[in-house]
């Protein structure tokens, strides 16, 4: 593994190497060199299997992180390739020509994060969400709670108590100066 990483560092301008264990390393590479690195890993270093492709929303930094998890079945080692792309115009080259099944991962990322993979087959078909009418739900600025409150009505008869108010009522009611009588939360 060490040798592989050394040669990769020389060739692909790797900006960060994190060693997770003897058989798992994380490499961060520039978007421009990512495709050549992935092809090189598949063809030359025999990382023939794409385990999965996932994304992380770094809202504060204005970036999405793509993580390509590659596996070398002979040596039983894994590499995670991290690529940061802009959040404003999220787009990445498609790898469906390298691994056909990557199209499915990319379709999911398009739906959940709104990341474009031009030329990826059926990219814009609904994946899990049928008739979705909001910003992609895995983006961190999507307010899940608000959405679920607006979309799904509560079961009749539900009632919740606010810890602070409830304790006040039970433990020191004389000092009560709140309007909220029973510690019940406003519905």
């Amino acid at each position, binding site marked *: 593994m060490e040798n592989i990483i050394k040669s990769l560092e020389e060739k692909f301008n790797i900006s960060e190497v994190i060693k997770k264990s003897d058989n798992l390393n994380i490499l961060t590479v520039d978007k421009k060199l990512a495709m050549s690195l992935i092809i090189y890993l598949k063809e030359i270093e025999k990382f023939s299997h794409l385990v999965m492709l996932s994304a992380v929303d770094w809202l504060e930094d204005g970036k999405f992180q793509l993580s390509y998890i590659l596996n070398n079945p002979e040596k039983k080692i894994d590499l995670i390739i991290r690529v940061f792309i802009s959040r404003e115009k999220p787009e990445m080259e498609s790898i469906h020509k390298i691994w056909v099944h990557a199209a499915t991962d990319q379709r999911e990322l398009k739906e959940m994060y709104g990341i474009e993979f031009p030329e990826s087959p059926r990219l814009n078909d609904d994946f899990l969400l049928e008739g979705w009418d909001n910003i992609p739900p895995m983006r961190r600025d999507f307010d*899940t*709670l608000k959405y*679920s*409150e607006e979309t*799904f009505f*509560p*079961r009749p*008869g*539900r*009632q*919740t*108590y*606010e*810890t*602070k108010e*409830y*304790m*006040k009522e*039970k*433990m*020191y009611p*004389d*000092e009560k100066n709140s309007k909220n009588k029973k510690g019940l939360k406003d519905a």
Partner: protein
Amino acid sequence: MSLKDVLLPFLAWGKVFKNPVTIKDPFNDRPGSARYRGFHKNDIEACIGCGACEEICQNAAIDMVPVKGIETKDGDSGLRPMVDYGRCCWCALCVDVCSTNSLNLSNEYTWVENDPDKFRYIPGVDKKDWDNNELGWKKPENYDLNEPFRIQMEELKPEKRDSSFIEFVKGYSKEQAEAEADRCIDCGLCTATCPAHMAIPEYIKAIRNDDLEEGLRIMYETNPLPEICGRICTHKCETVCAMGHKGDALSIRWLKRYIADQIPESKYKDILNQGNDISPKSKKIAIIGSGPAGLSAAYYLTNLGYKTKIFEALPEAGGMMRYGIPEYRLPYDQIDKDVKYILSLGVEIEYNIKIGKDISLEELGKEYDAVFAGTGLHLGRSTRIPGAEHENVYFATDLLREISLGNDIHVGNKIVVIGGGNVAMDITRSLVRLQNQKNIKVDVTATSLESEDIMPADREEIDESREEKAIIDPGWGPKEIEIKDGKIKGLRTIKCLSVFDDEGRFNPKFDEKDKKFFEADMVVESIGQGMDLTYISEDIKTMVKFSDRGRIIVNKDFQSSLDWFFVGGDIIEGPDVIHGIANGHKAAKGIDKFLNK
């Protein structure tokens, strides 16, 4: 249509004698995997009703509800989570955030019911088949949504602090305070336990938002002595903090100090918007004593518009906060800051006036519309053992007062302190500092009736005393102070086997044969303080009701049976600063009620 399509239905008959793919009894034959996220379980005894699970649920699937038989008490709201499976998506965030690890998901995933309301239930209360399932989702180890451990506070090393009275706890930086504030889950268990019911999660939130002015406003609603309390509060709140179950309680006290430390006193009036909008009332109130109880009453009465005047027997304000608590824990300029702000609102104060001697309580009662007394516990209690009357036997509180007044006190070469409480640790550590300053080899031993495990002093006080080279030798009962040729030789003690009897009453048992002699040329008694109520004349005493144990009886407003006479602080409740503050606040409201009748 192809030939295959035509033949297919017939081909299917060929499979009739093969093993079926469906399962006969899916309920038993297909258990969820070991870490499957199935139905909720809750260990109802361990759950504290903090509501973090409700707060995190992105589907609003959880309600916090009262449960019969579960009492609301310190550290437990008495509420328990009820899950609505019409909304739950089994994400297990509620499990991962749970403050006590009481909430888990079992690996059970099948449940058939006709009544949809049955799918709302209280795990652990409404009995279910999966309650004892061992398998299912638990919070993985070494993974926490909130940082479980507190941000450490910088302190001076023992060798840097043991010869000076400068403050040794450094205070948080902005980064440290915000990181610590980030750990709070906003449950409010602390507020219920705080004697002043301070809005703790709210001011912690103000730190997170870097809005310290808002933090200051929140603190002053219930506590006008934040610099002081931010340093020396007994912090009962931290003993119930939800975060303490999996790691450390929030450093609530240090966070309070952080807010006050960042804002200069000169800005308080603007921030708190006080002084200008108080509409003055004609009624006047006299306050006896400028301890926390008196200061707090004065502050809240002034805010209600009353003219208040404090009478203080000593030359400066603060009571035991100034004349008891040593400077290395609570620097005088911090007391001054809190006091100065209160006085700046128009509270008058007259020093060196002893009520009962310079002015009588009757006179105050005539001249003022109401009187509040927070006179504290200032009389040292003696062990009354033979030798205790020797001139080199002192009361801890007398010595601490002299040190605060800036007077030189007698410092022996070998000192024994009798007592195992925080006051005993304060005088022990003060004497260590004085011995160092006078180039005497440190030799102070504190001994108490209580054995180490039940010593009333805080653990950190005991540890820090030892770090400063004091000897703490608990578990001995004082018998006699040996005196030879008019000089103290030491303290004779016998082993104390137990301090309390089965009913929890103070009733020490000794082993007379197991003896220990502590060599000494000076002895300090620190076994508690009593109140001095001699300012209450015989006449007034007939109008004020006392309990069997000699305490003045007051109602919820801290009003005695003599309607214009209100009392609070150590002589009623505590003894600590925050009870004094809370009492003073309630008495102020009570006086307002009384004068508006």
